[in-house]
């Protein structure tokens, strides 16, 4: 079986790799590109630990084929902090102690960022339903939800100020 040559963009940088047609985007990110921030918790799209953005759309990387990355724009947790500065969501997760083991955290952050891009002022219920695809077994979600709401408020303020 010959491999496919995929040319794509990952976190604003050009990237290319060879892949089998059956390889998932998650495996390609982790094994071919060394981006292990996206985690495999289930491999079936149920836990959200592998959440990434493909052309601005939130997906489970375990449900996307690596070949589908051709010509698209991929964003992962590794691209979230910019120029040595944490994204407000990352900072608020730290301040609110919204992580314990940290395994689901990259996926939760990517998903939360997607939420705030779509809805800058979500209610608690909206946050809870949006993040319902990201399992966290440690925190009971309380501090996660608080961190997202707090980050949203801060990001709105920054936006107003600028």
């Amino acid at each position, binding site marked *: 079986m010959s491999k496919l040559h995929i040319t794509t963009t990952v976190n604003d940088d050009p990237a290319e790799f060879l892949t089998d047609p059956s390889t998932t985007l998650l495996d390609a990110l982790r094994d071919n590109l060394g981006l292990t921030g996206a985690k495999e*918790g289930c491999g079936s799209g149920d836990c959200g630990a592998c959440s990434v953005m493909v052309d601005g759309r939130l997906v489970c990387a375990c449900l996307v084929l690596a070949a589908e990355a051709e010509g698209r724009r991929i964003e992962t947790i590794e691209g979230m902090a910019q120029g040595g500065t944490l994204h407000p969501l990352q900072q608020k997760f730290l301040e609110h102690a919204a*992580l314990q*083991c940290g395994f689901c955290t990259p996926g939760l952050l990517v998903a939360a960022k997607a939420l705030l891009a779509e809805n800058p002022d979500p209610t608690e219920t909206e946050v809870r339903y949006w993040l319902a695809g990201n399992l966290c077994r440690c925190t009971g979600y309380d501090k996660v939800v608080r961190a997202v709401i707090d980050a949203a408020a801060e990001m709105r303020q920054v936006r107003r100020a600028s």
Partner: protein
Amino acid sequence: MTDILDPPKLKVVGTRPIRPDGVDKVTGRAQYGADLVMPGMLVGRIKRSAHAHAKIVSIDTKKARALAGVKAVITAEDLPNLGSEEYEAGEGGGDLRDLSLNVMARSKVLYEGHAVAAVAATSAAVAEAALDLIEIKYEVLPHVIEVEAAMAPGAPVLHANMFTQGLPEKATKPSNIARVNKLGRGNLDEGFAEADVVMSGRYTTQGVHQGYIEPHACVASFSEDGQSTVWSSSQGQFMVRTYCSKLLDLDVADIRVIPAEIGGGFGGKTTVYLEPLALALSRQAGHPVKLVMTRDEVFRATGPTSGAVMEVKLGAKNDGTITAADIVLKYQAGAFAGSPVGAGSMTAVACYNIPNVAITGYDVVTNTPKVAAYRAPGAPIAAFAIESAIDELARKLDMDPIEIRLKNGVADGMKAVYGPTYTNIGYLETVEAIKNHPHYAAPLGPNQGRGLAVGFWFNIGGESTGAVHINDDGSATVVTANPDIGGSRASMGMMAAEVLGLPVELVRPVVGDTTAIGFSGLTGGSRTTFATGMAVTRAAEKVVEDMKRRAALTWDVPVEQVAWENGAAVCLDASKDVKPLSLKAIAGRSGRTGGPISAEVSLTAQGAGPGFAVHLCDVEIDRETGHVTIVRYTAAQDVGRAIHPSYVEGQIQGGVAQGVGWALNEEYVYDADGRMENAGFLDYRVPVASDLPMIEAIMIEVPNPRHPFGAKGVGEVPIVPPLAAVANAVRGALGVRMCDLPLSPPKIRAVIDAQAG
């Protein structure tokens, strides 16, 4: 010793700094078990039984070995055939032979998913193809899943050599009942004779999984000189080392275990599944081997905790005084002996001062995965039965559920049924906190109910090592050997910073590998902040003593004339005109004053204070769908002293969430052939964000004088009350007692339909 039981003096302990490993975990840098890549690394896969119970007639690996790219194929024949030997490890313990047989089946498979063979190959695709080429002939045997079915005469026997222990007479026939344990005091007949009211009930729970999001994963590298290195995600690198040494008959000194970050464990990573197999594969292949489980494998072959059947009979006087408790607990152990029924028995009535008690526990093997520790192992199951029964008793007595708990609650000086006399416990304070909380008096809406339940967990101490190294720029490094499963680096760094008088940001706590630091028991039993924290504190104190000694030499005064205040040595001899010597100044001159400033302390921590939790839960029932919504949840807990309050709250909130899942959704579902039907997160449904409300965590601080800062273990007891708190709330909302977990929509609907007639 630092006087640290005086909170106003504390500068770091009790604050909420950002955890030292936090940035790595929000940026994707943190390396978990599956993230490591080694040069020349092979991919391993495990062949698992499709049968719940079968004899292995033959295994033929020839075709698999012949496949290009396959570098190793192992079966039980490649592991030592161990004899029976008891072992102790943190919350677990059991028989090494059983552990070995669980890691790789030998002659018989005992549950669907039981490992039978393993391969290592140059790619995942080759490894998977090789699994298909392994030919195994089975003779399928009748199986048994449910605990009472396994206890019944004529049940399929899992182990021909298992004779029930703990019977008055020696058992003569093999049985699935591994052990009967009895616990109690007083005289049950007299206790029930004194009672004005007697209630009895039968309660059942299903097997549930710890559900950590990170599947088990490791990399092992076995060198030609017999030395090996294992990187793995576990609750204890020393535990992994011990088990690899025992199961493969290797010298302990030849094995180095490097802890990866751990993506949740909850007790489920207090044992090994993959590491010995990865080592055996690496030894055969001559390359490093990575083994990572799929979620399907995690469900079918690891964890879970027991399903159980419980009978409870309680007697009480009209004034609410409980006079007698007769309790029978039957717990599934899975394929090998060792359910947590002992802990279930000991914790069952630990919140109550009942004079006449008899508790009988049955440890029963079944054709299900061998149970592993799960957060307060055994206690939530028993508490579901007891707290449901106490709730019914209160209803019979027309008594407020909180009053019956206060009236019969334990306090200092009372003797627990399981042995010790309580000291410095905060049970009644915790009950009072809930009684006085606005939640307790808040009005309920239509179709809503409120449930109260209490819980107990021992907490343990045990063997720990902590090291503190002062760096020459005035910063400090703290090394422990306890994997940081929920913020323990933060608490270790904070305790050291408090003693040293340094800002917490200047203290860098790390988790060392098995060659970097002395032995430590695993992260479990709610022991790390207590026991390892004690070792770290003592090491920091030793370092402070050393720095005081150096200051005394500098000033030419006796060391008694030197105090340590705010991170500096202060001369108490007024005749000396000297300025305080800061830690930084002392550290900078360490090369000229006696060399590196460093201390490592190993100890066995005694006197862990038990944890008590009191939970209050409101539910609302959708009478159309049978869905139960948790509308409000308040959890109070005696935490001793919260070192980092945010992470203590997090433990409470996380325990509640797991308990709610156990109460409402989670269960192992088996088909007629004993195969798990819901081995994935879609069908084994753990709570998601939209299932839960905010969880209010109330920390009651009744300090434990045996810990330098008063800490008690906090991680486990919060999962003890929720099963019953939810069930009691459902009882309130429905008007019918439901005794069979989970309280899933079909069961709720059945009650509603019956009510409709």
